[in-house]
């Protein structure tokens, strides 16, 4: 009959739309966001709550990430514990800007894990078309033992220099032998320097997330620029 064709078509379209709708709802794409990273105890969660809810709170080690809004920008606080590192890649993929914190007052303990994290990040950004800018917060400047940003930068640089030799020295079992190695950070035979070899701009900012005014951080989260003159 003449209307059979159109009925079938209609049915087909309906099924298609439903399928697409279900599929889209089932696998939600991660929306773009500004991502907070850093080793355990660097102060990410406090910064997150200060930025999103303007609230000082006590924190314990995060077991999952926190999501919130700063103005109209989405902010994600990615936990620092090593065991949760598996989700880092997905977060980096959606990051429009990256805020990394280190505890400048405990650099002896934090330099290695922080450098590892930063190394992972910079290596991941190596092949990105538009790598997001990084704000590196040297937190806890209220403490007497806090290192200067210059010192933090130097320590991280030295650690990254070592990691460039060692991190990919041992192949992982799922690497095929003919598969390409991850993009090398820096230039072969040259000492690594943030200013010359980083795939994205990194600004070092000394601040006390607990006590200080956070407007430079807020500005970075919203515009990607840091208003105060960075010390680098």
């Amino acid at each position, binding site marked *: 009959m003449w209307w059979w064709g159109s009925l079938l078509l209609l049915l087909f379209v309906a099924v298609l739309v439903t399928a697409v709708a279900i599929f889209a709802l089932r696998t939600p794409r991660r929306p773009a966001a500004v991502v907070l990273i850093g080793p355990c105890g660097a102060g990410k969660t406090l910064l997150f709550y200060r930025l999103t809810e303007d609230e000082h709170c006590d*924190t314990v080690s995060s077991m999952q990430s926190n999501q919130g809004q700063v103005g109209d920008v989405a902010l994600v606080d990615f936990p620092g514990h090593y065991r949760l590192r598996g989700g880092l890649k997905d977060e980096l993929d959606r990051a429009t800007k990256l805020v990394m914190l280190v505890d400048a007052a405990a650099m002896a303990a934090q330099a290695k894990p922080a450098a590892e994290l930063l190394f992972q990040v910079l290596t991941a950004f190596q092949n990105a078309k538009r790598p997001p800018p990084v704000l590196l917060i040297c937190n806890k400047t209220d403490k007497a033992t806090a290192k200067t940003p210059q010192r933090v930068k130097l320590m991280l640089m030295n650690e990254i220099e070592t990691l460039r030799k060692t991190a990919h020295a041992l192949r992982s079992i799922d690497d095929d032998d003919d598969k390409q190695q991850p993009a090398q950070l820096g230039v072969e035979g040259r000492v690594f320097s943030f200013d010359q070899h980083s795939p994205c701009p990194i600004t070092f900012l000394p601040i006390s997330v607990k006590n200080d005014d956070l407007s430079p951080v807020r500005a970075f989260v919203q515009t990607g620029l840091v208003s105060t003159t960075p010390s680098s």
Partner: protein
Amino acid sequence: MPLPVEQVVVFRKGGKVLWSRGKAKDVVNSWIGSVLLEEKGGDLRATIESYTVEWRLANDVDSVLVLVYNKSMELDFGGELLERLRSAVRKQPRELDKSYDRIASDLEARPRRVAPAPAPARREEEEEGEGEEEDEEEAAAEVSVEEKLRRRGVGTKGGRRKKKEDEKPTKKQPKVWRDTIHKRTSAAQVAELDYSKKEEASDASMATTYLPADGERAAWEEDEEEKKSGSWLSSLMESAAGTATLTADRVEPIMAQLRERLVAKNVAAEIATEVCESVATTLAGKKLGRFERARGAVKDALAAAVERVLTPKRSTDVLREVLAAKERQKPYVIVFVGINGVGKSTTLSKVAYYLKSHGLDVGIAACDTFRSGAVEQLRSHAKCLGVDLFERGYLKDPAQVAKAAIDDAAKKKRDCVLVDTAGRMQNNDKLMRELAKLVTLNEPDLVLFVGEALVGNDGISQITLFNRALANFSPTKRQIDGLVLTKFDCIDDKVGAALSVTYATGQPIVFIGVGQKYTHLKKLSVTQVLNALFS
């Protein structure tokens, strides 16, 4: 008198503290790292340093409640306090101060409980007598030494207490009972034992328990597909509306299937059970998202948990550690330990080759002074590698040989010393004592346990007992701090041992061996193991 409690804290899983009383913050953080993130949360009680930590999860309001007290105390009200606080968190999250004070004063007013706890006989005895002090000491000692065993066998004291006063009794988790450590009891028996569902279980319950109900088909006749499709429609409706909640009943059968799958992939049975139990506690009461199916949610949660367990808790980059030691001008010492015949010497040679090929000066110390031929075997490896071997023949104290080797290496300004030890069974006290002495005397930078990727259930008791023996015989309580899985090329997709050993020890897999050659040394890929386990 005030409650003998160090800290009570309520926090979100994201890390925000909602309310707290008292101070012992680092305890909570190390508890999160070593218990929750390693999926050992099925027991609701653990010992961290000199504290006992008890906890409850309130998944529906995304909160974790933690109670910390000195481990010399054996508090019997911990569970009750947390359960009551949990219902307060659900009802009046803003007035926790008041609620806590009320609960605390209730508990303070009460004399030390002489209650008919529905616990195993040993516990009852303990509470009947007046010699409570003694029992407490005994219990405290037991907590530290037999922690693991106690957790598996006997239920926790506070956690299993019935709370009559609770205005709105919260649903109890079904405890998974086993007659031995391996066998799980059948669903019917579980239901029989589950007193949370039938408060006044009558004696005539036998008939209802064992005889089939009207129209109920025997399990062997039941078609699994049919059962699924019945709930399928309703769960689809719920999920479309976004109102579905995961209950313990709903999680249980799904989890049982996933557990079977883990076991089929060679995860040790008891480990699979523990991980699944722990994940189940984090799921009960959780709301499902729109279009999220219960099965998918449970599977995702389990996969995420397994990923956390497998992901190392610190860097496993040995080369970097050796380079750092080189800067300090002190040889980096790695001791290889393990059962007989798992490939210790071969692994040691591979590591020597790996480090040497990165320009480091490596020395090998032959401390297997027990098995004849061991030194000769190692010498041929050393010759082949072009690396110096330090040996003192047989029948010497391996601890002294290792010390001499390390001193010698320091004199020669070597970067790294690899110490080979005799293979030993975990229950051989004499040899375990020797090994503990070697580790205590020389304070190596890394103690690597070498094991086969082929091990199943027995491998777990091997590694736990090995670890415990080391700790018991050494005054510094030094234990294994890294793992090597050999023969990883022979296991196809039966990668379960990787999960078992990391879960049992909490330590990362530093290397895996994938063949005979010196170059057949790799690092573990967590993604690959996850794919093998879950796809």
